[in-house]
């Protein structure tokens, strides 16, 4: 069903507008990352970084700690996504495939938890982690992040699981597979788009979170990327804007790469879950 030519031209025009609107701030971030601080806050904006340099990037990576922070962030984000997906998948199975006492209650509670503002919680979460001796560890931070993304992940995966016909599992069960094996062998692969969608969401949450990471990860060796970047914006002597933008670009890269790889599967994933929700 090809759209008519005038429709296509109009649509493409809209597309160009969207590209400019969405892309301009990103372009500005990258552009600024090549400029010296003096050129960044100046009366005349610099549109293209001719004569700019990689100085900001060099300074960032040289200041040390970048690779360390990158490593910590990667550990936390990947662990969060992996654990959250497994636990949420199991929970989604339970809620979508079985009818049991407390099921409705569980679903409603999951929804309500997502509505609670997080700003006040970090002190209590700090005390909690202190009590179980998990402060300043990847495990501790991951634990809290997993709990934070689980509600959304369970809720979304539930819809996906419900959208997969149970007959598929049944035929596997009739063929002699145990119920658990049936779930894993049949349902799981069909869930791939949904897992990818929720995985990306969880990754971004863990990758960009700041306040909790700031208070929980005390030692410099355990700083995550957002905390590391923050240290460039808060010297008493004026913010190093070039470094901030370079750092932000570096921080965005892994997320963008992750996105690009999974984009196709994600699109179809989000909608099946939504339609069944």
């Amino acid at each position: 069903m090809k759209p008519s030519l005038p429709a296509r031209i109009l649509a493409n025009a809209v597309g160009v507008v969207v590209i400019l609107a969405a892309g301009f701030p990103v372009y500005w971030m990258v552009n600024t990352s090549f400029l010296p601080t003096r050129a960044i806050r100046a009366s005349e904006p610099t549109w293209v970084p001719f004569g700019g340099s990689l100085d900001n990037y060099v300074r960032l990576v040289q200041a040390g700690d970048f690779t360390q922070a990158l490593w910590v962030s990667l550990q936390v984000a990947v662990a969060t996504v992996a654990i959250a997906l497994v636990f949420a998948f199991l929970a989604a199975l339970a809620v979508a495939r079985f009818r049991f006492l407390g099921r409705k209650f569980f679903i409603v509670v999951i929804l309500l938890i997502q509505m609670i503002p997080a700003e006040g919680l970090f002190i209590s979460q700090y005390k909690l982690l202190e009590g179980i001796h998990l402060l300043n560890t990847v495990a501790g931070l991951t634990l809290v992040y997993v709990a934070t993304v689980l509600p959304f992940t369970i809720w979304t995966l539930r819809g996906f699981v419900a959208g997969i016909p149970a007959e598929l599992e049944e035929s596997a069960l009739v063929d002699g597979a145990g119920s658990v094996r049936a779930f894993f062998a049949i349902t799981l692969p069909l869930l791939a788009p949904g897992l990818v969608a929720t995985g990306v969401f969880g990754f971004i949450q863990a990758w960009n979170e700041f306040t909790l990471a700031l208070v929980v990860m005390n030692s410099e060796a355990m700083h995550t990327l957002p905390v590391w970047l923050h240290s460039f914006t808060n010297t008493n002597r004026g913010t190093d804007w070039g470094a901030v933008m370079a750092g932000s670009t570096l921080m965005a890269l892994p997320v963008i790469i992750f996105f690009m790889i999974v984009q196709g599967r994600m699109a179809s994933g989000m909608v099946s879950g939504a339609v069944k929700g």
Partner: protein
Amino acid sequence: MKIRTGLGLAVAGALALSACGQPAATTAPVPGATTTPAASAAAPANIRVWLNGTDTPQEARDFLKKTFEAQNAGSTLTIEEQQWTGLVDKLTTALSSDSQTPDVVEVGNTQAATFTTVGAFADVTADLAGWGGDDLLPGFVAAGSVDGKTFAVPYYAGSKAVFYRKDLFEKAGLTIPTTMAEFVDTAIKLKAANPDKTKNFSGFWFPGKDWRNAVAFIWDAGGDLATNTGGAWAGALSASGSQAGLATVQKLFTEASAAPKDGDEADTWTPFCEGQAGMISAPGWVRGLILSEENGCPDMEKNLGVFALPGSDGSSAPVLLGGSNIAVAAKSPNQELARKAVTIMLSTEYQTILAKAGLTPAKVSLASLLGDDESAKATIAAASNARLTPAAAGWASVEGAMILEDFMVNVAKGGDIAALAAEVDAKITDKLK
């Protein structure tokens, strides 16, 4: 041979692991009151010192570490770098935790007052004499004291001075003002003259949220932000002295400044370097920024001058004293060693390093260490009459709710200062009660 290597590896591994882990939590947390019994004084430990931002020069940090470790065999000192933003969050969680608390912390003046009154710091009244007694900057000691006991001591101070463009002054035929009235006059004339015909030129760059500079004019006219009458704090911006000062402030906002009416004072050097400001009021270290290749305009050096804001009576105006305090954490298990670290930080050698970096030392007698160039003279003159924000326990709430910023923005917009002051006084009184 094999066994020995294996053992060596095991020991090395154990040491490495313990080094990576947390400092071992001691058994009984020390209550905030007095110094600990002699037992813990002997035990070597790792002392953690929190320093904020980049003010403390590397030379001072190295000196602190070296001297401490030399004087206390077996103990080590680690400096943990913190940022000012988010510091309160970290202090709130770490200082109240038995296992995570640092031993010595650097805090700003307002935070010193806040955390002192809630008992986060150890009582160091007994150590004051050894650290300098009355020689310690009195305003800072007051900010860190409650009920006659002291919990935080000054670390370094910094006050603002006025940086000005010598060339613009010359072109407009102006001289350095010697009284407050002359200052206001100069600023207005400079803006009107705008010798280089720059767009959005300010005679005196005065952003709307900048209450920290505005307060100097209020104090100069005899007013204050809040006063304590009979034990109760109340907002004092409606008093006649405050109103007179606010009138001056409004005049400057509307006639001498083209800075954004809702801007803050975070970045004064960029407008200066862009030629949009004839005068700025900024802390001493801004000079370094203006002259830096990275951030500023080194070519401006020959045109850069500095003087202390003059008061109405011809001496320096009472400007807001900035700076930092140091305190020992109440829950620190290493009370003795922590105090030894503070002793080093308040020593003449250490403070000299700070002074050479342009920071005003914590002891009045050491002020001369700043040197005697124009910048140092201005700083010393400015500091001589400098004051702190009201020593009310709830002052941090006033700052946290941005009450004064909002008030100043409304003044800058040209509102009726009497009505605005009445409104803001009510808000301040409410927060301080």
